[in-house]
């Protein structure tokens, strides 16, 4: 029904990276890791507790994998999400390694080539996908719980995790298609800008590199790189298995055991290095043949489990995280009509992920829009939220909580995040009360300590060279 690109067009920006896609399902092409990464971001940002917070059961599988399970008996289906501490932050010099390894999982495993693997799953209506973001590799499976569908799906997932083939001919194909996708990334001002911004924010930290890799690193990747990466990181002790579906505890235990049965125990890799604060503001003006200039600004933000998580989360919700009613949206779109979309977000990772702001506007007014963006941030840091803004934000976050844990697809993502980052099991239960407890002074204090407008990395992508040179001259 949703014929092609004949839209529909959506009124508000979907809150970038926070909203569910309007069109679910379907398979992606090109860099699958990118799609998965976006899904992962949706998680853990906005739970709370109303009635019926899912009851999480947890145990350790024989492989050493940690399992989190929520029974959801209403629909005859199960969602399984296996995550490893094997994100692109573990790539080392070989940028794109985690993502390429994940992509190759479904290209052949055990005795099955890619054709057979795809048929095995699709013959039973099951879905299987894999990808990597900065912190984790995720392998996701959805199946009906009736037999023999479930056994087939579980067997396939287990084999894909434990015994991927990494056939050289498949690697060559995947490599070439990844190179095509990387060139297509260069067509998108937003993607070009985001990659540059991460480099500017994270410097020599592994988070600086894009999970998809670069043309040079992808070209240089060998099969041995992949097999080594798999052998090192696809380990029981390094895995979290999240399960939501129509199973009882015994069924879930059997599933988790089987899925991870082929994984050696191994151990968790060492912690990632700390992220250094920026010492100075930077501006990179990337010339681009486009009608708009994409303006992005950011700096290191916060990590999962950060002591300032809740004040920063609520504060950002008010500043630029609440879609059509955020302060940024009001200043940039509602008052001035400068941009269709504008937003800010913290992306909490194992180490501090970025705090990021953005918009896009026609080239001629990019300077004005950037000024409003930065002034709005500065004013928010100086003044903090009003009581009215804070009350509205709390009502939105807590009142909307039931929506965010309504589906199995939502819950399984929460479970993976809770398990991966070691968040407390009562995280969902306590979320609402922790939101309620935040005061305006706490937000102001947290933003003053944690967000530094004089040390922002700024990237512009557009036909804006004249404006950029005027600014950088003034800055010297």
């Amino acid at each position, binding site marked *: *029904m*949703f*014929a*092609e*690109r*004949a*839209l*529909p*067009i959506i*009124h508000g920006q979907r809150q970038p990276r926070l909203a569910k896609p309007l069109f679910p*399902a*379907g*398979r992606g092409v090109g860099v699958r890791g990118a799609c998965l990464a976006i899904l992962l971001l949706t998680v853990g940002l906005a739970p709370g507790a109303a*009635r*019926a917070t899912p009851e999480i059961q947890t145990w350790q599988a024989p492989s050493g994998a940690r399992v989190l399970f929520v029974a959801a008996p209403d*629909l*005859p*289906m199960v969602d399984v999400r296996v995550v490893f501490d094997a994100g692109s932050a573990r790539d080392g010099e070989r940028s794109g390694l985690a993502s390429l390894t994940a992509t190759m999982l479904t290209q052949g495993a055990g005795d099955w080539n890619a054709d057979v693997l*795809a048929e095995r*799953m*699709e*013959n*039973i*209506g099951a879905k299987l996908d894999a990808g990597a973001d900065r912190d984790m590799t995720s392998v996701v499976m959805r199946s*009906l719980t009736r037999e023999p569908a479930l056994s087939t799906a579980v067997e396939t997932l287990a084999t894909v995790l434990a015994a991927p083939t990494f056939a050289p001919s498949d690697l060559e*194909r995947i490599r070439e*298609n990844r190179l*095509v996708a990387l060139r*297509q990334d*260069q*067509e998108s001002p937003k993607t070009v800008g985001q990659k540059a911004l991460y480099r500017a924010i994270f410097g020599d930290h592994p988070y600086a590199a894009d999970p998809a890799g670069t043309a040079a690193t992808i070209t240089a990747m060998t099969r041995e790189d992949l097999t080594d990466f798999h052998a090192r990181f696809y380990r029981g002790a390094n895995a979290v298995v999240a399960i939501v579906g129509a199973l009882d505890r015994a069924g879930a235990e059997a599933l988790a055991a089987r899925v991870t049965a082929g994984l050696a125990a191994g151990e968790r890799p060492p912690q990632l290095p700390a992220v250094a604060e920026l010492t*100075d503001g930077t*501006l*990179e*003006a*990337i*010339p681009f*043949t486009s009608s*708009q200039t994409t303006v992005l600004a950011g700096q290191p933000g916060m990590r999962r489990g950060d002591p300032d998580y809740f004040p920063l989360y609520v504060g950002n919700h008010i500043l630029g995280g*609440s*879609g059509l009613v955020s302060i940024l949206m009001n200043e940039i*779109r509602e008052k*001035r*009509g400068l*941009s269709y979309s504008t937003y800010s977000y913290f992306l909490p990772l194992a180490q501090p992920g970025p705090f990021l702001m953005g918009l896009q*506007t026609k080239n001629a007014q990019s300077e004005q829009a950037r000024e409003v963006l*930065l002034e709005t941030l500065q004013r928010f840091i100086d003044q903090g939220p009003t009581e009215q803004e804070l009350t*509205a934000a709390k*009502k939105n*976050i807590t*009142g*909307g909580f*039931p929506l965010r844990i*309504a*589906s199995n697809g939502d819950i399984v993502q929460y479970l993976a995040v809770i398990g991966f980052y070691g968040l407390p099991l009562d995280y969902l239960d306590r979320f609402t009360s922790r939101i309620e407890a935040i005061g305006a002074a706490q937000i102001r204090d947290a933003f003053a300590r944690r967000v530094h407008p*004089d040390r922002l990395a700024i990237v512009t992508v557009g036909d804006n060279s004249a404006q950029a040179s005027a*600014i*950088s001259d*003034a*800055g010297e």
Partner: protein
Amino acid sequence: MQRLMKRRLLAVLFFLLPLATRAAPEVQERRLDNGLRILVKPDHRAPILTSQIWYRIGSSYEHGGITGISHVLEHMMFQGTERFAPNEFSRIVAENGGEENAFTGRDYTAYYENLASDRLEIAFALESDRMRHLTLGEQEFAKELEVVKEERRMRTDDDPQSLTYERFTAVAYDASPYRNPVIGWPGDLEQLRVEDLRDWYRLWYAPNNATLVVAGDVDPEQVFALAEKHFGPLKAETVTPPKTLAEPEQLGEKRLLVKAPAKEPYLLMGYKAPAVADADEPWEPYALEILASILDGGDSARLARELVRGSQIAASTGASYSAFERLPGLFLFDGVPAKGHGIVDLEQALRDQIARLQTEPVDASELERVRTQVIAGKVYEQDALFYQGMQLGQLEALGLDWRLADAYVDNLAAVTPAQIQAVARKYLNPDRLTVAVLDPQPLADDQPARAPQGLGGLTHVR
């Protein structure tokens, strides 16, 4: 092409009968005296609901000179009524923990609020207010029009594949309003006036041109009573749909080249194809949907297996068709060639695939796999309340009966290999074809980008 493929798959997954394992909740239906149709689908899995209002208006109702007006009006629906100031709508929904948005398509414009199940009245109070009492202020219009122009730049002008699709559509159709982009042509946006919107609003935003859909943890009788309270007092409007701009028969293959800054070429091919309302035989649209899945229903389908993996001609490729549109549409193919291959190879490979479908019946196992996926998809879809509401609203907005959903799986399951072959021969015919090729032009970043520069603080920048 991600977009193409995702959307088509969804189309296939959309309208299926429930499995025997679990009966779908009954849909309850009511019509108010003013003509507003209401559909309620109870689903008590979680204490939430989705409230959606679907208007029968979209870009395919627009005439030349005002293209994009339906979408601009949709933006203006958030810009204040006699009772509420601009953006107040969004603020109230947000304070009630709700998610809300709207979208405009060729055949409909829809607004929704997702809320906890005790907040339904908020949605009804606000939606009934803006159905007939929009302010459409001059100042808000001027500002919002700029927002829409930025939206167009972002979605279309600076995205080479989107731009290719827009120009492709304009060539593929000779007369059908589907030739116009939903977001409107730039020149039409320039000349749009708030008076145009006032007329458009009065014509189409009326209870007798809308369907209200509520799905979730609700009691249908209570929903009907609340709807009567809020929407009941609204007056009906005389709604006169525009005369159809019927698409004449195509008289041979059409081709176009789109030159735009890009790194990779892109191929789009579209064959004129009927929708459910205008097919010669009722089974044809269903056979076309199955055909699309045979080609592109997952990684085991023919395009992925044979063009991406087998011959490795395509880096990515997809096929797409939708039976449910108001007017006849297109059966689409798209793709990006793999290394060592060009657009010519890719087009030939796709034509070879079509020829095979025309000469050989599809394998029984392929057909069975598509059916299985369709049935599983129906189960998965029940995990997403919003889409359950959406399928009802969309069918009604297209002027079709929502009960068509009930027959959908049976109609798909009844498709035979011979019928698939027949529609391939009849519709995937070169005389009905339009081919567009994106011809990449240099991007400015082909020169080295500037190195980042330290600024010593951003005082000067701000």
